[in-house]
């Protein structure tokens, strides 16, 4: 038996795996326990999915503090809607559209947000594996450049070019026309290339 320990606010959530562990089965067990009110199980789900949720929020928001708030909102809403998760997909797949919707409907005042500047001086917020030789565009550069875009253009670029949504899906999510989504994407790509040229 392999025991996996998850530190949880001074408590330990112990998940026993069979020798041949099935990650999906483990996840389903965690979700079932969380659906029954087990906060420790939900915390484990949070820790397994937080980086991905935060990454999407950060790119959509362009602001690290706002992204933290959005990511928190995602998990609070996920807890509230756990009963709707049927286990037909991975938990991360279930979280993804919820994350997009919350990032798009961000309503809070941007009290800590400066218009075109990343709100953190800590470059490790965009920590990346070492750059491959000959790579023409730095990933850190793209994330920094993304944060400088107008909100609409940034969100369409993230949804289309990073997350792989189609224009009709983006239009449905954002409430804009498909043509507007295309125009925003064109604008985002143009602005990004200008920013990356320096």
């Amino acid at each position, binding site marked *: 038996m392999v025991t996996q320990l998850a530190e*949880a*606010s001074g408590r330990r959530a112990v998940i026993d795996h069979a020798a041949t562990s099935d990650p999906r089965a483990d996840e389903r067990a965690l979700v079932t326990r969380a659906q029954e009110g087990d*906060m420790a199980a939900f*915390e484990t789900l*949070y*820790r397994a999915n*937080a*980086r*991905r949720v*935060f*990454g*999407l929020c*950060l*790119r959509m928001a362009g602001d*690290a503090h706002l992204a*933290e708030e959005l*990511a*928190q*909102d995602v*998990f*609070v809403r996920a*807890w*509230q809607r756990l009963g709707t998760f049927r286990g037909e997909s991975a938990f991360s797949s279930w979280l993804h559209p919820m994350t997009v919707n919350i990032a798009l409907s961000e309503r809070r005042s941007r009290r800590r947000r400066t218009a075109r500047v990343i709100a*953190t001086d*800590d470059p*490790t*917020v*965009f*920590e*990346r*594996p070492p750059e491959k030789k000959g*790579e*023409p*565009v*730095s*990933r850190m550069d*793209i*994330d920094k450049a993304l944060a400088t875009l107008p909100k609409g253009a940034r969100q369409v*670029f993230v949804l289309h*070019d*990073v997350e792989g949504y189609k224009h009709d899906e983006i239009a449905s999510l954002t409430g804009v026309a498909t043509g507007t989504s*295309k125009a925003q*994407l*064109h604008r985002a*790509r143009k602005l*990004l*290339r200008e920013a*990356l040229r320096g």
Partner: protein
Amino acid sequence: MTRNETTTCDETTNRMGDYVDGVMQGAALHEMEQHLLTCAACREEERELRALLAAAEALPSEVDLPRDLWPGIAAGIEQAGQARQRRWRWPLGLAAAAALAAGVAVALMAGGRPAGPLDIAPSATPATVAAGTLPSDLRDAEQEYAEATAQLLAALGKRRDELSPEALAAVEENLRAIDVALAQVRAALQQDPGSPQLARLLTSTHRRKVQTLQHVLRLSQPS
């Protein structure tokens, strides 16, 4: 560069996205490819855009968090749970009371033989929340409603001869349902005496009781 070539480069730049995304077809695709064969500047545009999209596609989906968000999430879940408990559902008794008020009206209008002594237990002396746990304005409001209710019950008692047993029974059941609702709200106020929502619910429930009694009195007046 001639005006035609400039125009063509502008058009190429505007449509480069569709070309790189692979959605361009037919004559437009052919023209684009032909132009790129002869225009180094536009080929460079294409290269830049493809590099950007490749880098975007390769962005790692996971980003390290600056801090642990779990304490905020746990607090948010806790708050959401408390909000759900405080969001007091309209006591079931009131929904029944609204339906019963209609039933009382029907019974009264249909007439019928006079009933025996009016057996409506005056719940006009409410079991008040312990002194000091309610704001004084709420206690005053409860007292006023209690007095109004007592007067209406007394008036209704004098009209007992006008009421059929069915109407009496309906009125009594109606008032009992409202009193159950009042007791529920008061119990909730004992837990959370400062809640403005519960205070509003208490006064509106009292108001509903008074309105019901007024309604029954109007209907019981001889025509």
